[in-house]
Every structure is written in structure tokens, then in C-alpha cells.
């Protein structure tokens, strides 16, 4: 199983975001670097959910916001490592919609179940494969690095 490591502060920030937007889905971008073949997340950047028509069970990040986030990340010598979102009152497992809309092959997708307003389980999935035709989600092992300072935004 591939590993997704991050500071505990980033992990907590993602989960807190899900609690704040409950009963709507939150979403954001994970920035980091590949270290010895594994993604190491260094920061989580909050993004707005464009799906105001169905925010309780859908999310979408404005591509213009993504462009800005990617530009800022590159200035800090970081890359987009993945994305996070919440599932209000629904398990932290990828859905058919999550899979259909996943196009960042090689990146991680982190999902937090928010049950009755409180963050519950958080899972991470690697979008593996090489093309849209053979892509698949594979579970990742989330490891928290307590030694790294607060870099969440």
C-alpha cells in the first residue's frame, strides 16, 4: 500500500474544514512533494465548493482557483499532491461520482466522513493507473508526521 504522509496539523485542518462546512461538503487542495517515491503533503489549501446547487453531496473546485493555487505552489517549490473533501453523514469511501470525476492520476484523494457535524473516519485513495480507461482508486496508508510544524493555510 502506498503511503501519504502529512503533519498532524494538516490532517486536523482538513477534518476541521469538513466540520465547518457541514452539512455541506468541503473541498481543498493538498500541496507537497514526492519523497522517495511517496507523496509527502506539506500544506492543505481550502477551496470553495462551486456546487452550491447540491453542496450536501457534491463538490467542485473552480478551475481558476486551481490555477492560482498551482501557481502559488510552484513559487514555493511544491506540487499539487492531491485533494480532499468531506462526505457529510456518509462513509469515507469513494463514490461512483468521485471516481468518474477523478482525473489527477498519481495524486491522492482524501475523504473524511463527517457524522452529525463531527469528523469521523478519514481515508485516502491513490488514483492509480495510466489513462482514463485503466484508472482505479487504491487505498493509501495515511501517516502523520508530528515533527513537522504547522503549514496549513
Amino acid at each position, binding site marked *: 500500500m502506498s503511503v501519504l504522509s502529512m503533519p498532524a496539523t494538516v490532517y486536523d485542518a482538513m477534518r476541521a474544514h469538513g466540520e465547518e462546512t457541514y452539512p455541506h461538503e468541503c473541498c481543498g487542495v493538498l500541496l507537497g512533494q514526492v519523497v522517495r517515491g511517496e507523496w509527502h503533503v506539506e500544506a492543505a489549501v481550502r477551496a470553495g465548493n462551486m456546487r452550491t446547487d447540491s453542496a450536501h453531496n457534491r463538490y467542485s473546485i473552480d478551475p481558476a482557483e486551481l490555477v492560482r493555487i498551482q501557481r502559488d505552489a510552484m513559487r514555493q517549490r511544491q506540487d499539487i499532491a492531491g485533494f480532499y473533501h468531506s462526505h457529510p*453523514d456518509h462513509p469515507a469511501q469513494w463514490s461512483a461520482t468521485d471516481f468518474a470525476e477523478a482525473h489527477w492520476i498519481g495524486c491522492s484523494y482524501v475523504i473524511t466522513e463527517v457524522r452529525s457535524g463531527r469528523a469521523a473516519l478519514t481515508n485516502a485513495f491513490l488514483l492509480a493507473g495510466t489513462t482514463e480507461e485503466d484508472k482505479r482508486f487504491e487505498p493509501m496508508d495515511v501517516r502523520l508526521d508530528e515533527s513537522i510544524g504547522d503549514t496549513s493555510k
Partner: protein
Amino acid sequence: MTIIIPTPLRQYVDGQAKIEVTAPTVKGALDALTLERPELRKHLFNAEGKVRAFVNVYLNDEDVRYLPQKEDSAVMENDTLTIIPSIAGGSSFQPSAFRRQVEPRTSN
């Protein structure tokens, strides 16, 4: 001009985050980028040669789809073209409180 390559596509450009190309238009720049990179082209374009629906292309801060000339828009040496796949999803879960609002009542 500079083309910014997103993380998933860097494997097709030797890991580079930025590629410099010379072209008169957005379409020309994408063609120049993919001319000798057929695997990258398959990721960016569909079988009809159109940019895939989930691939967003920004000329500086503007979505190319909404420019008057779209992919035929002229580009300058100092312009930046950003390729950014879309990101969306969601649980699709319909809680009972929401279901009650849309489900028709059954008569006895």
C-alpha cells in the same frame, strides 16, 4: 510562451513543470507541446482531436473556452498557458431530509 504542466502529466515531459514553446495561437502551442509526445496528446485530446472535457486550459487568467477566439486566440511570448484537469466529486448520498422534499407522496 510557457506551458504549465499539471502533476499527472509531468511523466510525459520528463518530469518538467514548465515547457517553453513558440507558437502563434493557443492551438499552435498545444500542438507544439504534443507534436513529439503522442502519449501526452492522448491525455489532452479526444479521438476527434478536441481538448477533453475535463481538461481546462487557461491563457494567463482566462479560460480559453470563454475567449472570443477560443483555441485560435493569439498568444505572446510572455504569456502563460496552464493545463489544469478538473476536480469534482461527492458522496452522491441523498439524506432522508432531502429525499422527503423531492419524493412524491403516496396516496392511501
